[in-house]
């Protein structure tokens, strides 16, 4: 039986967590993640979720607590945003290097300074090299569903890497939509219990977190990279199996929407994809062949799939909610990087939009896409929705 309800995004995520049944949850409150951990706290207080819930003294401690718990064999969960994720930075590398399948639900938010509590994706995108799998949810349903997929992929012995499931702060965390919520029994079928082969126990006293000299370190990074490659396959498999199980959700690592023979490819991630789709549809009605590539996961980066969907297009346009000052948008760089190895190298345009919570209305995207189509934009990276600026000292 499908349980379909109008719920807030954060509540849908908390519900998914409840059915997935982590053994240990540790978290620290930060806007806009708060509703997730508040709801989980409520489940714990009401006995609806039987887990150890640790109210950590910081995000740094929260993720460190999960390192200890995960190494002991527990299934673990935390959620954070922005500065909180940045504060976890050091531990993220540590958890990935120790191959601990921790899952974080990230409520994407801008980074300070200047202080800004609103949505963009600079927080998680800037953790791209930490060794974590990164999923980006387009809507609340997907934020809910991807959690189960994340655990399944992360805990797979072929992968054993941590995951973050990113959802746009406020836009998804604080919105209400009808969501098909997991039943506990159906999640059990999809996601088996976590029983690691190696874990901390006095019955077999293993050493975790050894020091690797230059003689070994390279090989550790090498096997981690290989595990990411395997993760790519596992994600694709898990998406299909999820779809068979629940009859919903994407079935491709890099889903494409719109006309297959479209000569413009627009790539984006998170909730922005929805708006891009609306615009592409409208432009399609106006006679422009625009297809949309959805960056469902940024790590592992689906380079092969990207080449495939870009095959035959004249222009690739990337809309992303992040920027690397001194360079360009990270997704744009990587999309271009993938296309360098393709025979067909389309023109490439990258736009940072929606930074710090700026709403990205359809008209903005439509204007930018049309400027690219008409050749009014230079190839390369641009701020898409920036106003004229005069710099001043005071």
């Amino acid at each position: 039986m499908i349980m379909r309800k109008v719920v807030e995004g954060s509540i849908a995520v908390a519900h998914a967590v409840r059915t997935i049944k982590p053994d240990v949850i540790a978290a620290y409150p930060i806007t806009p993640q708060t509703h997730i951990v508040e709801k989980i706290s409520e489940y714990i207080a009401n006995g609806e979720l039987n887990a150890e819930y640790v109210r950590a003294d910081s995000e740094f401690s929260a993720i460190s607590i999960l390192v200890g718990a995960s190494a002991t064999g527990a299934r673990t969960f935390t959620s954070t945003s922005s500065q909180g994720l940045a504060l976890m930075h050091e531990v993220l590398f540590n958890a990935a290097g120790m191959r601990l399948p921790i899952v974080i639900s990230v409520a994407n938010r801008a980074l300070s300074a200047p202080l800004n509590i609103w949505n963009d994706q600079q927080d998680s995108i800037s953790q791209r090299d930490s060794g974590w799998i990164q999923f980006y949810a387009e809507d609340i349903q997907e934020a809910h569903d991807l959690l189960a997929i994340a655990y399944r992929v992360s805990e797979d012995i072929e992968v054993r890497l941590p995951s973050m499931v990113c959802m746009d702060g406020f836009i998804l965390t604080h919105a209400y939509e009808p969501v098909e919520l997991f039943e506990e029994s159906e999640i059990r079928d999809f996601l088996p219990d976590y029983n690691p082969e190696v874990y901390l126990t006095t019955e077999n006293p293993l050493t975790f977190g050894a020091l690797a000299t230059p003689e070994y370190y390279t090989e550790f990074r090498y096997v981690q990279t290989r595990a990411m490659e395997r993760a790519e396959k596992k994600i694709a498999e898990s998406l299909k199996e999820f779809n068979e199980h629940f009859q919903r959700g994407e079935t491709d690592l890099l889903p494409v929407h719109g006309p297959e023979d479209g000569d413009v490819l627009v790539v984006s991630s998170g909730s922005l994809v929805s708006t891009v789709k609306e615009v592409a549809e409208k432009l399609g009605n106006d006679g422009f062949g625009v297809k949309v590539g959805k960056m469902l996961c940024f790590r592992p980066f689906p380079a092969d799939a990207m080449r495939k969907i870009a095959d035959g297009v004249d222009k690739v346009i990337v809309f992303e909610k992040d920027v690397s000052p001194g360079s360009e948008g990270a997704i744009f760089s990587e999309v271009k990087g993938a296309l360098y190895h393709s025979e067909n190298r389309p023109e490439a345009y990258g736009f940072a939009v929606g930074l710090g919570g700026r709403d990205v209305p359809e008209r903005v995207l439509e204007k930018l896409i049309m400027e690219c189509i008409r050749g009014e934009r230079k190839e390369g990276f641009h701020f898409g929705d920036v106003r004229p600026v005069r710099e001043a000292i005071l």
Partner: protein
Amino acid sequence: MDEVVITLGGVVKPGTARKNKTGSWKVFKPVVDHEKCILCMRCVNYCPEPCISVVDEKIEMDYDYCKGCGICGDVCPVDAIEMVYETKG
């Protein structure tokens, strides 16, 4: 090139450092005068390696690991341990 084994997460089996024979570090080695020794166990307890034990009611030093720090001699209440220069090679 030789193949290296990289374990999942770098997990290591217990006690595997025993293959690292630190005895080569020492310049002076402790020698026990079993006549004087009263088996008080102070050297056993204070050895940082640890590489001193009682075998057949006699103190035995495992020179494979002894780094020659001299703590055993220093804590011996009856001066039964002497540090002697170890010629190598």
